[in-house]
């Protein structure tokens, strides 16, 4: 289990001190600085200063934390397996419960456009919360939106929300009108969806699955836009004619170049140019599966979380 911030050069990067004690579920760079928020199965959310390699804060939750995100540089949100969405205030090291789901909360995102916290849970709903609500979870809930299945991943760009659920469903919402999805489709990949991330330019999203494939999709349903969509294989190891097909756990887009990195259970991080359909480079193999990836706001740093992601069940 290591969390490393790698400069944009080939290598395995600088490992951060005081990593979590159990698997990392997600990590995020702040949009304002090089603070890194890391959520883990050891029930903590940790805040690091990636430049200084210093642990700045730690929040302990009652249950495993499945996702985390920044609000601004001084506060963030976490999604817990104990069904809660919590707001974390870094300066005072305080946290409070923003809201609850009926099941473990798998994803949390903050939308600057809507000023809302959006969470997806295994209770098959996506909920929107207003973080300015002060008194208790009842006042903060803006809306609940039923999904066809348990939510596995979600991503925001501009006014769009993409929700990927079990059973390969993908719902695309316009945040301004959440009453019904803008698009409801099945993933073009054949197996379970692992991760969905929107392009920084807002034209589409990348979907990754457990079958070592990533598909590049576009929001625009016109024929010309849809003709640009494609899927490619990655994170596979071929030996003796057969592929070992690794799940692609994480995708992260470079905020400026639009290139993206994918991380899989094979322990590799690949960086791709989606427009030209080429792989740019690949970092050295990490000790265990890549659990999460995040680029810093200026794209100079890539945070790589490497920890066992349970793709082989309980290891006894």
């Amino acid at each position: 289990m290591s969390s490393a911030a790698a400069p944009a050069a080939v290598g395995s990067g600088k490992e951060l001190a005081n990593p979590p004690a159990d698997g990392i579920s997600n990590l995020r760079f702040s949009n304002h600085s090089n603070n890194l928020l890391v959520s883990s199965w050891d029930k903590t959310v940790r805040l690091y200063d990636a430049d200084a390699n210093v642990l700045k804060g730690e929040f302990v939750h009652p249950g495993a934390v499945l996702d985390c995100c920044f609000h601004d540089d001084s506060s963030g949100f976490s999604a817990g397996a104990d069904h809660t969405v919590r707001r974390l205030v870094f300066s005072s090291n305080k946290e409070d419960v923003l809201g609850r789901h009926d099941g473990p909360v798998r994803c949390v995102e903050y939308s600057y456009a809507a000023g809302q916290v959006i969470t997806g849970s295994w209770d098959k709903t996506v909920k929107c919360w207003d973080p300015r609500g002060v008194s208790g979870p009842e006042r903060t809930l803006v809306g609940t939106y039923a999904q066809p299945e348990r939510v596995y991943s979600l991503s925001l760009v501009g006014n769009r929300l993409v929700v990927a659920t079990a059973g390969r469903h993908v719902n695309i919402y316009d945040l301004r009108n959440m009453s019904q999805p803008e698009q409801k489709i099945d993933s073009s990949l054949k197996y379970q969806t692992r991760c969905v991330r929107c392009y920084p330019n807002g034209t589409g999203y990348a979907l990754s699955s457990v079958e070592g494939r990533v598909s590049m999709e576009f929001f625009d349903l016109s024929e010309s836009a849809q003709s640009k969509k494609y899927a490619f294989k990655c994170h596979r190891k071929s030996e003796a004619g057969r592929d070992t097909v690794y799940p692609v756990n994480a995708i992260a887009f470079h905020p400026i170049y639009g290139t993206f990195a994918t991380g899989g259970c094979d322990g590799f991080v690949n960086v791709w140019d989606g427009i030209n359909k080429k792989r740019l480079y690949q970092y050295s193999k990490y000790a265990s599966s890549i659990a999460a990836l995040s680029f810093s706001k200026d794209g100079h740093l890539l945070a790589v979380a490497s920890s066992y992601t349970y793709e082989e069940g309980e290891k006894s």
Partner: protein
Amino acid sequence: MSRRQELCRNFQRGSCKYGAQCRFVHASSQQQQQQAKPNPFGFGSQQQQQQQQQSSFGVQFQQQQQQKPNPFGFGVQGGAAAKSRNAPGPAKPFQNKWVRDPSAPTKQQEAAQPPPAAHTSCTDPESCRHQIAEDFKNETPLWKLTCYAHLRSGPCDITGDISFEELRAKAYEEGRQGHPLQSIVEGERNLQNAKLMEFNNFLNNPRLLVTQTPSFPTVASFPEVKNNNSSFGVSQNNGPPVFSSFSQVGVATNVGPGSRTTPGVPVNNIFGQSNQTSHPAFPAPTFGRSDMKFGVSGFGSQISQQSSGSLQASSMSSFGNFPKAHGGYQQSPSSSIHHRDIDRQSQDLLSGIVAPTSATNQASVEDNKNENQDDSIWLKEKWSIGEIPLGEPPQRHISHVF
């Protein structure tokens, strides 16, 4: 798609030893015409371009590469020969230092598949079958507890998705409740075996959704499962008596590894299932389409419930009942309720993966109550997407048997 129309992979690579006698088509451009969408990089998923993957083509930092295939290639047109890759492309922005992987030819033979454009709809069961066989042979993912669809952008053929995190959360919860590591591992292994069986059965007898609306919910609905009734009879080879006696089921569906019996038995013992037979895992996958996600497939849910440590004694008897919904293999009136219990409980289980064991027992009581309210749903002519029931129809609503 018949094999006569398949492109010759060797020809594409520049040399086919059969020449004019080759069984496959020697044309470099046919693939382009077949593609549903133009792709200048010849790149769509499962194009014959995949064969390029093996030759570590494209941008290479040799010191970094560990035989990682490069799926992108150099944007060569579909059908361009792999060997002559240097020739057709324009000046490449990156150094072309690819080394032809010696194992590539073998892989490329396997990798070349009919273009997926042919599978945008299930008009040809044979091609679907072929596609499924190819997928399973070449691209079985490491993670087994997944759903699967043979059509890209199509509905799932095998449902019952479980993600890594869900399994992990469940295991952590069980650990917190004090289950020994061994039982947790056994439970997970059961889940995996059952799923593998499901995949195996689907491979041997794919039931393709021809009558379903495209966006049917993941949770398997009975109309969908009923489509598979005839296939069950076929695959089982035993007909009605199969489901009533578990031993027969075990024999008939002994597709998977024989070691399956072992996990089944100890798990049962661990969870104190008195009326447990040793084959709970087996029948689940035979309902190829059924919702393994602790849903319709009573057997599957059996396993999952076991693994989560809940004592679902009532669910045992429902096995005999399950086939009833699919065509009345055995009619056991009282067990229909139990089967619904399984579905409800399974759903509860999955959604409340962190929920304590005792909750599920309560769920069974509630399910009985809920069932009475749902009767009107069975009387409807046509179900719309949102209201397809999760459970099986009670006895009184079964109009005919297959």
